[in-house]
């Protein structure tokens, strides 16, 4: 218990340092709030947002979109990455397509995604999906292809069929990379969300930033950034990091940090 408390404290320490620097330096150099807002005004914007309920609404809406987009992407990306890692045929067919499509920015897709998936939720989800998908696929692919061949052979000669090979060998073996893929992918999901929420919505953190930008409300922009960062940290600490500890660190597949 004490150990967990202290590790949580250590985790927060860098942020506390950052907050202190912010609280001290911005007023000290008398920075124009249009360049960077004061801590107090961001706090105030946060309190207002909570009091009138809008902040919570934005968070809810964004979380839902990120969740749907990301889960869809994971459902498709992980099996695809595994397939590419295992089958030379799949890999030689998909590699060129992946190379080509992986750089196409979500916002560029908006007009086309709107035609295909409808204006609003469909297009937004697609943009998020697009942000997560490639990164997770590539990481899964790498994870699968770094599993030592003899381990895969061992499973095959113990009678592992395709399904067992997937669940018993390929997925756990690729897990370190999949987790890193999800970690980077989710980061990009948030970015995709910000880009996508300029369309078709009047709720969501991206929308909040979008409107704030038009009126130079930097404190709202920074508030939005902090909210996104904190949500993401919570997710990482409550979901990804424990998974990592319970699996790949436990199994001795990566060095404990």
């Amino acid at each position, binding site marked *: 218990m004490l150990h967990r408390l202290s590790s949580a404290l250590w985790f927060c320490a860098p942020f506390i340092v950052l907050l202190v620097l912010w609280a001290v330096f911005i007023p000290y150099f008398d920075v124009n709030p249009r360049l960077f807002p004061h801590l107090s005004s961001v706090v105030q914007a946060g309190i207002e947002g909570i009091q009138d309920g809008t902040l919570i609404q934005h968070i809810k809406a964004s979380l839902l979109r990120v969740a749907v987009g990301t889960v869809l992407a994971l459902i498709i990306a992980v099996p695809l990455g595994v397939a590419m890692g295992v089958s030379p045929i799949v890999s030689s067919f998909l590699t060129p397509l992946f190379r080509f499509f992986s750089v196409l920015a979500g916002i560029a897709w908006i007009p086309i995604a709107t035609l295909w998936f409808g204006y609003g939720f469909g297009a937004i989800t697609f943009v998020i999906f697009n942000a997560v998908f490639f990164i997770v696929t590539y990481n899964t692919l790498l994870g699968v292809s770094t599993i*030592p061949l003899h381990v895969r052979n061992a499973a095959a*000669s113990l009678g592992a069929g395709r399904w067992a090979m997937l669940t018993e060998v390929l997925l756990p073996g690729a897990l370190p990379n999949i987790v890193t893929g999800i970690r980077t992918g989710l980061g990009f999901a948030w970015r995709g969300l910000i880009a996508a929420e300029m369309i078709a919505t009047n709720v969501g953190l991206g929308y909040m930033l979008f409107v704030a930008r038009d009126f130079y409300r930097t404190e709202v922009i920074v508030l939005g950034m902090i909210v996104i960062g904190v949500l993401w940290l919570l997710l990482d600490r409550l979901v990804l990091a424990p998974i990592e500890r319970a699996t790949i660190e436990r199994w001795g597949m990566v060095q404990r940090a």
Partner: protein
Amino acid sequence: MKNLTIRNLSKTYFDPYAGTNVTAVHDVSLNVGQGEFVCIVGPSGCGKTTILNMIAGFIPHTGGEILVGGRPVKGPGPDRGVVFQSFALFPWRTVLENVAFGPKMRGVRKAEREKIAHEYLALAKLTEAAGRYPAELSGGMQQRVGVVRALANEPDVLLMDEPFASVDAQTRMTLQEELTRIWQEKRPTVIFITHDVAEAVFLANRVIALSKGRVLEEIDVDLPRPRSWDSLNDDARFKELSGRVRQLVRSA
């Protein structure tokens, strides 16, 4: 239980980067009958593991053919259990789960397969380590897990690559005796690679000496069974055979 036929088998490794070829196995032919126990000996790098890998279906051969139970080998399968020179344990599974893996693949129920795994672990003196992960084991312990993992699956053909190399003398003797016992009970066809001449003679019906990718000679071991170290240690025939094999390996 299946027999094994190898005809004119060859294997050339091609290195696409250096553009060079290494021919590891040359035109090897071999017949192993149902339930026979064959040991392969030969100097390091003479192609033993390569042959085993081809029988197991892990790597393609570049010439000749391999028939297991009359059918050509297409890929790995649970009919051929393998003990790897490099252990190849699943790092993400405990020792118990590693050993129970084969039965699990066959669909054996959890309680049942854990019972099986525990029995085999006891045999390899690994009961204490059942709950640990492979990264927490000593080298010899890892190797023993690899051995009993293959045994627990009761395959028709057992392919063992220096399975006792990292095991201490005492445990090794126990394991050798256990292996012959299990073999006599279930009668799998066994191909066993070793550097230990005494081990080869103790275990095998036939010892095959390899040299530079070719079969040098085959020696039938006509010692009576059941064999035990106590009875064989001073056996003249055992000594004679061992001497012959040792001679062969030396000349290889």
